[in-house]
């Protein structure tokens, strides 16, 4: 038997007494689409691992995904719902979700873009399996396929029916699905072809608020976190990182064997590690060695106080291709020259940390036979595996990466590396035992990557009617995706190139990431300029301030200046900033979320000050990202005496098209909004000329519960779109421009730099009107 199922191949491998199943596996369609990311010398492809979806004779279903969970819950909720829906099986039938592990999952790819623009791999895979099940049922029942209907895991037609379990009973069935791509690249494999998909109008599982199954095990302390993994003979490791982001080792401190008799010191290039049988001894011994270790000095950074002058005056923005938005149109210079009202302003965003609550931690076991096992919490196990193999000069198939629950880190490891994995491998290889490397809090703030700082220049103009007649923005941001393994870098072992080096995948170019949304504007010019990472090229260890994508990457940096500038334009025109947006928008779904956020937030045409001496204001921001429209209103109270901003309420309206799981999406949006308020009010990476000076939660503060606003989430379910947009991450980007807009509304002053710390706001408010960049709008 060999049946063609819309390009997939269904075959019977034999009959078995027990444990019959249909296994959906993969075959590459033709040659691999992408070249190997790291080194052409490495093998082009590896054998593809087993199955993705398994239909078992007891009517249970197992699914596998190369993605892992970082607190989105998607792989345990939305993925199950999508698979159940396409299979026409009950949600509860999917009893097992295998995720992440490189030796147990088929497709790789990163934990980002989880819903894949409405077409995640799991959806197509399930659609193929569904067709295969209908073919099997047609053969079994002797009924034409088009006469069959599947519901709740049972196929019926012509008065007969058979369950999925019965269809596979006693058989070994394989379905080979066409895929394309490169398993070991950052993006993994993509399911190919076009199997028929279930009509949205027939959905019964998608749209319901199924709970996230992993929450029970986490709440009851039954989950195996990465922090819980232990191996026989395992040693605890602590690493000693260089004194600055450009220091080389002069001499390692001597380990005090009298005090720490069971500890060992490992020195590899500019990376030092101490391992010991107990965690406390490893910590103390590492501190003792660090205190005696000597490093060269380095001062290659501008320091946080001079950062934006560095961007303006010193950084080289001419070396990278300039990105121009596809929506650019008209003659902006002419429009600005001929308009009665104009505005020119610069906006500045600081470096941010992903700042996971748990610092990165990994356990590595480099075995005598050369095989390497890494136990960690990564968004991209296959890419990490490739990087580890490259570092060791070993074949990729010698490396296995297993993933476990851990602290969310919001994009930091979407290219594989969170920080500790390669260091654990280096230490394990050196001592010949499994080593668990736990970064301490200062390591995690000072040696992880950051979300890049950015600067944007805006010029805009209003016509006589107060409408936007011209808009120009130039975005400046250093390279954002440095996936080099930091331990390999310090140890002098092979890594992928830095963003400014030959062969880099992403390079130093900046992209246009924030789609233009105000189509009524006749002349628009948006451009994005890139440069190398700050201090990296001049660092003797090629470190400097390494950057990495973080929630809403690149788009946050472009949306803040755009949305605040639009609010300023509205004030300049004497118009309500929300109505101003409605007047300039043309896309129906954008208008929908703007109206929803206006109607549900208590938006007033003019917010009033309170009788409590605080100035109150409201602001709005919008975004289109990955198929989803967002609008956010912030309502704030400002204390003019202290400059303290209290965010009283955040309202977010979101239209992702089809809402897959309302309750889970609502929680994700709430979380994103809280992170957004935190970024707007508090977050800014402190660094001097040598390195990052933030080293704890006091020097890199995040929002606490005391300051959490009332949060209202409005989900706009829009099934007519026929697809599901991405979940929640944009929620974190919207708060800052909405809050800055509310500050303008409350005080007439514009804060064009984040964060809105009290000293900054107070200084802004104390400026004499007329000398400040402030605007007074309608009143």
């Amino acid at each position, binding site marked *: 038997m060999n049946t063609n199922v819309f390009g997939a191949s269904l075959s019977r491998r034999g009959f078995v007494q027990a444990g019959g199943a249909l296994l959906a596996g993969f075959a590459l369609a033709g040659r691999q689409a992408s070249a190997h990311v790291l080194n052409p010398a490495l093998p082009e492809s590896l054998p593809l691992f087993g199955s993705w979806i398994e239909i078992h004779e007891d009517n249970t279903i197992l699914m596998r995904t190369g993605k892992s969970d970082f607190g989105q819950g998607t792989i345990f909720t939305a993925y199950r719902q999508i698979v159940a829906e396409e299979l026409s099986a009950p949600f509860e039938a999917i009893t097992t979700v295998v995720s992440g592990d490189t030796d147990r999952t088929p497709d790789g790819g990163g934990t980002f873009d989880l819903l894949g623009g409405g077409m995640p791999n799991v959806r197509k895979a399930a659609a193929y399996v569904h067709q295969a099940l209908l073919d099997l049922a047609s053969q079994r029942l002797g009924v034409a396929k088009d006469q069959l209907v599947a519901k709740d895991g049972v196929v019926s037609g012509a008065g007969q029916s058979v369950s999925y379990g019965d269809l596979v009973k006693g058989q070994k069935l394989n379905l080979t699905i066409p895929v394309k791509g490169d398993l070991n690249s950052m993006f993994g494999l993509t399911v190919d072809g076009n199997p028929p998909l279930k009509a949205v109008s027939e959905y019964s599982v998608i749209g319901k608020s199924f709970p996230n199954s992993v*929450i029970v095990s986490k*709440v009851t302390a039954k989950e195996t976190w990465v922090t819980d993994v232990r191996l026989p003979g395992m040693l605890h490791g602590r690493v000693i990182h260089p004194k600055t982001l450009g220091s080389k080792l002069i001499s390692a401190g001597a380990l005090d064997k009298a005090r720490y008799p069971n500890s060992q010191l490992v020195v590899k290039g500019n990376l030092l590690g101490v391992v010991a049988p107990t965690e406390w001894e490893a910590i103390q011994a590492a501190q003792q060695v660090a205190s005696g270790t000597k490093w060269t000095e380095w001062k290659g950074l501008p320091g946080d106080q001079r950062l934006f002058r560095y961007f303006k005056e010193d950084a080289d923005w001419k070396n990278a291709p300039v990105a121009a938005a596809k929506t650019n149109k008209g003659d902006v210079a002419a429009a600005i020259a001929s308009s009665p009202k104009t505005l020119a302003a610069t906006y500045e965003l600081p470096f941010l940390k992903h700042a996971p*609550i748990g610092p990165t931690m990994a356990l590595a076991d480099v075995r005598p036979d050369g095989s390497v096992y890494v136990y960690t919490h990564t968004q991209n196990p296959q890419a990490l595996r490739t990087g580890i193999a490259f570092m060791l000069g070993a074949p990729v198939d010698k490396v296995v990466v297993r993933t476990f629950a851990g602290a969310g880190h919001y994009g930091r490891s979407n290219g594989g590396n969170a920080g500790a994995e390669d260091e654990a491998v280096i230490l394990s290889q050196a001592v010949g035992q499994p080593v668990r490397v736990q970064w301490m*809090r200062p390591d995690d703030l000072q040696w992880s990557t950051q979300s890049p700082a950015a600067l944007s220049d805006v010029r805009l103009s209003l016509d006589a009617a107060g409408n936007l007649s011209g808009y120009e923005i130039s975005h400046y941001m250093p390279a954002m995706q440095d996936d080099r393994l930091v331990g390999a870098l310090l140890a002098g072992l092979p890594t992928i190139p830095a963003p400014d080096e030959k062969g880099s995948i992403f390079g130093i170019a900046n992209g246009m990431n924030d789609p233009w949304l105000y189509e009524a504007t006749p002349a628009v010019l948006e451009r994005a300029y890139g440069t190398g990472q700050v201090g990296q090229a001049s660092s003797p260890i090629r470190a400097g301030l390494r950057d990495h994508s973080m929630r809403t990457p690149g788009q946050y940096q472009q949306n803040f200046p755009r949305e605040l500038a639009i609010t300023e334009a509205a004030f300049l025109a004497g118009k309500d900033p929300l109505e101003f947006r409605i007047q300039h928008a043309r896309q129906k779904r954008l208008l929908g979320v703007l109206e929803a956020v206006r109607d549900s937030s208590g938006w007033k045409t003019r917010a009033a000050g309170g009788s409590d001496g605080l100035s109150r204001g409201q602001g709005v921001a919008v975004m289109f990202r990955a198929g989803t429209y967002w609008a956010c209103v912030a309502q704030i109270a400002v204390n003019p005496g202290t400059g303290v901003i209290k965010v009283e309420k955040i309202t977010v309206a979101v239209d992702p098209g089809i809402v897959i799981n309302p309750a889970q999406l609502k*929680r994700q949006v*709430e979380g994103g*909004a809280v992170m957004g308020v935190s970024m707007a009010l508090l977050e800014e990476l402190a660094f001097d000329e040598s390195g990052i000076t933030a080293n704890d939660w006091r020097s890199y503060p995040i*929002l*606490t519960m005391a300051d959490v606003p009332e949060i209202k989430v409005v989900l706009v379910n829009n099934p007519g779109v026929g697809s599901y947009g991405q979940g929640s991450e944009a929620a974190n980007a919207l708060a800052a421009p909405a809050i800055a807009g509310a500050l303008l509304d409350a005080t007439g002053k514009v804060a064009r730099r984040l964060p809105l710390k009290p000293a900054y706001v107070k200084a802004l408010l104390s400026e004499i009107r007329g000398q400040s960049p402030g605007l007074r709008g309608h009143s």
Partner: protein
Amino acid sequence: MTALVVNGVKREVQAPTDTPLLYVLRNNLELSGPQFGCGMAQCGACSVLLNGKEVRSCITTLGSVAGKEVTTLEGLSARWAQQKGLSGAALHPVQAAWIEEQTPLCGFCQNGMMIKATELLEKNAAPTVDEIKDAFTGGISPHLCRCGSYTAIIQAVQRASAAMSNATSKRSHA
């Protein structure tokens, strides 16, 4: 050898007395509730109850807890059962509320959040939102959540509060 009572069971630990309790719980006693977040008592991921009071196990030495009672996330359900005179309980009402409200996102901080909620509700059965915020923000440091689950935590504490007072009133009417 240091003796302490962990989740109702007497345990003896062979470790230097200056070892932070967190490492004793995780490595010597193989408990997985308390997490390492900062090691500086700034985040609350490592919280446990020490004689009923929430403390940060990352800065609490083994020597200082000799003879005392430590309750971790693993011991919450038994603690509730004992307090209510039940033969057993699958979940502490705080845990049940955390599940019903779907509170955790990544969940790494939630051990400390549930420990703090338990301490709060044992002292104040019906806290206001401001009292909840005070409890989670005051003390040695705020309890931090990076995923932004604070709203869900407040709702879960309120749900647990209602469940616990229902349990109490049912018992008193029995």
